[in-house]
């Protein structure tokens, strides 16, 4: 019998999408192991979150509530998760694949003297043993691990089907006392700057027009933006384009950028490095426009155009506008 504990992160009083993914993965794992699924919620007021976690599959919720926990601060959250884990004694802790989860997972593992695996993209149970799969070497290979003892698992974003809340599910709520002083927050978030990027959030976009080093400069990205706008989509970029300063780093897609899952991904002047492709594994259809017929992006693409994008883009934009009746 194993105990599975899921960190269910929240934002503005509701569980995040990453939290529902973690609860989905946790529920499936607990069922496969015949284990109970516990979740931990951390907030100033946890009542609604605890009920939401139960609706999303948790059998028991450890609720760490304290007025000091009104806003995410990493040091306080690590302490809260540690307190909940001490109460739950889990064999496995699943942590969300968002930026908070990325910093919490290794720190929690250290405090629990547990092992750690991050970016886990698949979970399987064979003969009672859990096999954790994650991409390595920039997505060029997949590695499968088993744990010899307790382990903290950082989940890869958008790889695990989110739990669908079921009204009427029942579960138990356990309050966890946390005595911390604000002094504990050695690192404090002072201000959040949300990027308002022409409406559609990259992560939510159905269509993404992405550019790379081949775009050649910031002006070229204006044309990509115009196309994205007319398609009702968003603009994305490779690390090379972000590093060149042509677009904001928040547009970066890939292993160290956004993980996206649009219906249509149009990659223009992007070579298709494995670290870039790691961010678009969930894209349904990939279109590549690249002047190099041997560019690796064509291995991932469904449709490809081998050309200088400058000779293609204006006409493509005009044609699509005509088709869309714009």
């Amino acid at each position: 019998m194993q105990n599975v504990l899921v960190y269910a992160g929240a934002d503005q009083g509701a569980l995040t999408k990453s939290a529902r993914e973690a609860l989905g993965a946790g529920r499936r794992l607990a069922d496969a192991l015949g284990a109970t699924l516990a979740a931990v919620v951390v907030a100033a007021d946890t009542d609604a979150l605890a009920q939401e976690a139960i609706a999303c599959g948790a059998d028991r919720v450890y609720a760490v509530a304290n007025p000091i926990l009104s806003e995410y601060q990493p040091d306080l959250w690590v302490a809260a998760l540690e307190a909940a884990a001490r109460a739950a004694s889990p064999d496995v802790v699943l942590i969300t694949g968002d930026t908070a989860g990325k910093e919490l997972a290794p720190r929690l593992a250290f405090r629990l003297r547990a092992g750690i695996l991050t970016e886990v993209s698949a979970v399987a149970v064979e003969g009672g043993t859990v096999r954790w799969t994650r991409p390595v070497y920039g997505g060029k290979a997949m590695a499968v691990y088993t744990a010899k003892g307790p382990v903290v698992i950082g989940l890869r974003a958008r790889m695990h089907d989110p739990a669908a809340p079921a009204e009427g599910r029942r579960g138990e709520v356990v309050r966890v006392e946390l005595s911390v002083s604000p002094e504990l927050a050695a690192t404090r978030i002072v201000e959040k700057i949300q990027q308002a990027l022409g409406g559609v959030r990259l992560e939510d976009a159905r269509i993404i027009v992405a550019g790379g080093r081949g775009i050649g400069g910031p002006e070229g990205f204006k044309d990509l933006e115009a196309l994205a706008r007319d398609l009702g989509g968003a603009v994305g970029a490779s690390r090379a384009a972000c590093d060149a300063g042509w677009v904001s780093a928040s547009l970066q897609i890939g292993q160290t950028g956004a993980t996206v899952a649009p219906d249509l991904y149009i990659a223009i002047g992007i070579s298709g490095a494995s670290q870039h492709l790691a961010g678009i594994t969930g894209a349904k259809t990939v279109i590549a426009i690249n002047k190099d017929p041997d560019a690796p992006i064509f291995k991932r693409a469904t449709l490809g155009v081998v050309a200088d994008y400058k000779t293609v883009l204006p006409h493509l934009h005009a044609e699509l506008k005509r088709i869309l009746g714009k």
Partner: protein
Amino acid sequence: MDPATKRPVQGSAKLVMDSYAEYALEVAIQLKEKHPGSKVVAICVGDKPTDDVLRRAYALTADEAVRVWDPAWADLDSQAVAHILARTIQKLGGADLVLTGREAGDIERGVVGPTLAEELGCACATIVARVEAVEGGTAVVRREVDGGYALVSTRLPAVLTITNDETNVPRLPKVKDLMMAARKPITTLGAADLDLDPARLASPLELVDLYIPVQEGQCEIIEGDDGPAKAAALARRLHELKLV
């Protein structure tokens, strides 16, 4: 890839500095330029060939280079690396700022930095794009968060894990510095020099399989006499496939 050891075969390939470590070093060098009197020490856990990586750090104007290695450390995981780094930093007398890459390009993902902060018992800020200011025992940094940025204030000493930003693209070394780098001394430390906890060096995980996923991909190349013709054909296919 060696099917037996499930490890990559290095062959004749040279070791290079990890991509995000280069961005971290760039941030360190810029801080040194802004704060005269500060010192940049490059530390790497690795065997003799790793000297190449430290020489690169010297060429990029790091002031000191330290390589830590013990022949018994064949298969360290990132928690073990963080433990060794922490003990090394303590042995060297500590640091105000410890910079690491946000994640390594090979196996592990973002574990060393935060674990190192825990090991050192100091503050930690992750996925830092810019160090805006360091003053009076505090650093103000700009970090990535989901959907944007956050300004974060962190008490020193602190571990920062660095991400790429247009302000920290690694510079190219000057020829003069490259030449000098070849002659600079690299300090080496081993297990006997450090106060290590053997329990933290043993990996609690077992690698049971490593494989290269098959790329099925069948790409249909759109033909056409010129750009406009290809564009029209692509638009038509996108419409036929109901993709727009």
